[in-house]
């Protein structure tokens, strides 16, 4: 057989070359290629005698400095959220008032069911989600800046050691950062990770990185229940996600996905000043996904919820599920319904509350209304926020996990373990917190 002969000849040649060069043939070949290139470049390119130190090099002297690297990284993360938060609040109030006004007008529409549909369903449900366009878009803008300026690779460099400790990889850090935008592209980005176990672990923990769709939930509840420390509470949700990701990464690497982690060899691109158009295009492309979702799946969910509520079918469903969440403090049927429909997309959690609680109320007070009607305390709100962070990623992410792992087993596993973990964490928060209040 010729092919076997070829492979046999290959082995003979390799052995022969190794004995001649005392080196693998691949080294000899790579040397020859690079030799050819440097010969060619001496004729086709001139470099200054001393390499110019670029601005990029100077920036790195500070940003990934031995001592400043980590504080700067943390400060940047905090800055991203602070920026998102501060700039978006006035914009949100403005949109909020607009929707509130429309919802009020809708009450005068007859017949009564149509008025309710438009007021509660459309403006209440969908409006309550669309109010969060500014923070989501601004978050995407800030993340686009990190991506385009070249810092992302630096973050991986700074964090590799820590990631290595938990049996992962600096490379895994990039998908984690991307997860703050949306977990779908983040999970796709794991394709660059060579080692299959590194990659799978990175996929399994990615849903804990709070995506843009979870931000509205945090803002809503932090705004209503933690007026004095809103920013801090929102940030604590992100931090909780990161910590859980690290813990679970460690657990997986020690149990289901044992084995050595892959190499870390990565190039650092030069910093580039992002262009305004580039940033806006990025923000728009990612933000568009949110708007499309609002117009399709969130809209459909809100209509369904309104319909079930209007016909009285929603409450029994909620009541059947609610007791499960009693230990975590949010055992009301409305919360149960919100969590169930939130499986479609996390924004629907808000959309559900929006539909159920609008009435003629002004939307701005949605969080307050929830507190009043359900009797929630800050502690319960916090436990509920943790639950929405952790429990089952949205459908789009589940689909992506299925595709990228090519396995139903792992997909079902993610759904199961996040659900259980979410319940445990929320319950712990509520129970332990209750001891002190």
């Amino acid at each position, binding site marked *: 057989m010729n092919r076997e002969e*070829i492979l046999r000849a290959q082995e003979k040649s390799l052995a022969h070359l190794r004995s001649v060069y005392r080196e693998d043939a691949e080294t000899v070949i790579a040397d020859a290629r690079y030799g050819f*290139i440097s010969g*060619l470049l001496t004729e086709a390119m001139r470099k200054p005698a001393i390499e*110019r130190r670029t601005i990029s090099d100077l920036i790195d002297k500070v940003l990934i400095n031995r001592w400043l690297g980590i504080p700067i990284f943390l400060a940047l993360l905090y800055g991203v959220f602070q920026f998102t938060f501060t700039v978006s609040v006035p914009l949100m109030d403005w949109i909020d008032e607009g929707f509130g006004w429309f919802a009020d007008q809708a009450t005068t529409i007859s017949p009564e069911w149509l008025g309710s549909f438009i007021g509660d369903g459309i403006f209440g449900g969908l409006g309550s989600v669309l109010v969060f366009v500014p923070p989501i878009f601004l978050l995407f803008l800030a993340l686009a800046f990190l*991506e385009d300026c070249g810092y*992302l*690779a630096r973050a991986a460099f700074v964090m590799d050691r820590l990631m290595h400790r938990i049996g992962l990889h600096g490379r895994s850090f990039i998908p984690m950062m991307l997860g703050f935008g949306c977990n779908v592209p983040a999970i796709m980005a794991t*394709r660059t990770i060579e080692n299959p176990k590194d990659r799978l672990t990175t996929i399994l923990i990615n849903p804990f990185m709070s995506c843009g769709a979870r931000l509205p939930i945090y803002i809503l509840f932090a705004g209503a229940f933690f007026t004095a420390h809103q920013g801090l509470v929102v940030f604590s949700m992100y931090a909780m996600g990161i910590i859980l990701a690290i813990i679970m990464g460690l657990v997986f690497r020690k149990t289901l996905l044992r084995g050595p982690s892959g190499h870390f060899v990565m190039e650092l691109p030069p*910093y*580039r000043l992002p262009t305004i158009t580039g940033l806006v295009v990025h923000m728009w492309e990612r933000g568009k996904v949110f708007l499309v979702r609002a117009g399709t799946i969130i809209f459909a969910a809100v209509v369904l919820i309104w319909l079930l509520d209007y016909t009285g079918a929603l409450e029994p469903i909620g009541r059947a599920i609610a007791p499960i969440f009693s230990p975590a403090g949010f055992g009301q049927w409305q919360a149960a319904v919100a969590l169930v429909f939130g499986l479609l997309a996390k924004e629907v959690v808000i959309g559900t509350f929006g539909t159920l609680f609008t009435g003629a109320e002004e939307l701005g007070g949605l969080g307050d209304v929830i507190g009043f009607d359900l009797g929630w305390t800050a502690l319960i709100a916090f436990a509920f926020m943790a639950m929405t962070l952790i429990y089952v990623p949205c459908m789009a992410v589940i689909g992506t996990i299925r595709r990228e792992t090519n396995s139903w087993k792992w997909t079902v596993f993610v759904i199961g373990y996040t659900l259980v973990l979410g319940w445990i964490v929320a319950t712990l928060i509520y129970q332990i917190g209750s001891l002190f209040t």
Partner: protein
Amino acid sequence: MRMAKEITIALAGNPNSGKTTVFNNLTGARQHVGNWPGVTVEKKEGTCRYQGYAIKVVDLPGVYSFTAYSIDEVVARNFVVEEKPDAVVDIVDASNLERNLYLAVQLMEMGTRLIVALNMMDQAESRGYKIDVPQLSYLLDVPVVPMVANRNRGTQELLEEIVKMADGEVQPRKFRLDYGREVEEEIAKLEELISQDDELSQRYSPRWLAVKLLEGDEEVVKTLRATKE
């Protein structure tokens, strides 16, 4: 009306060299661009019409060589090696020429119809690199187009070269890198055996395959094992 002639070109190159930026310029698409290696992880197709050609442009994930390790790299490798586009445009970072040309050399060895797009000329200039483009093109014996893709410079010139190549005005020349006597002897032996295999030698350049075998390329070894009739 004359039917548009259809050709497929692949955009290959090192990670972060500007492939997707060029792709967007050519096709008007808005694929995601970012300043870190590994932004594009799957192949993306788009079309572009130019001078009677319907050009199918394929944007690929970045690779440092055609020895693939990760999923995205396998995608890029397989498209260039197995699906054989009509031409490959290697997007090369001019400010990092030495390492970037490593892939170009491998593409030349494969016998692909190659155009080198010398991107990021702005960055090379700001570092004080003086690149003699005609000389580079002469030495490589392939068309070289200087570009600044993020400012959409050089797109027209690149299209001209693509069309010239499709018209058959520029013929790919046989490229042969001399690996030294000992290695060449082994290459010759393997090449001889490969040439006897009709199917293999029709699909791949025998010399390229021989070199790949000496590099211990697992994908190539796998192909040999798998297609064994």
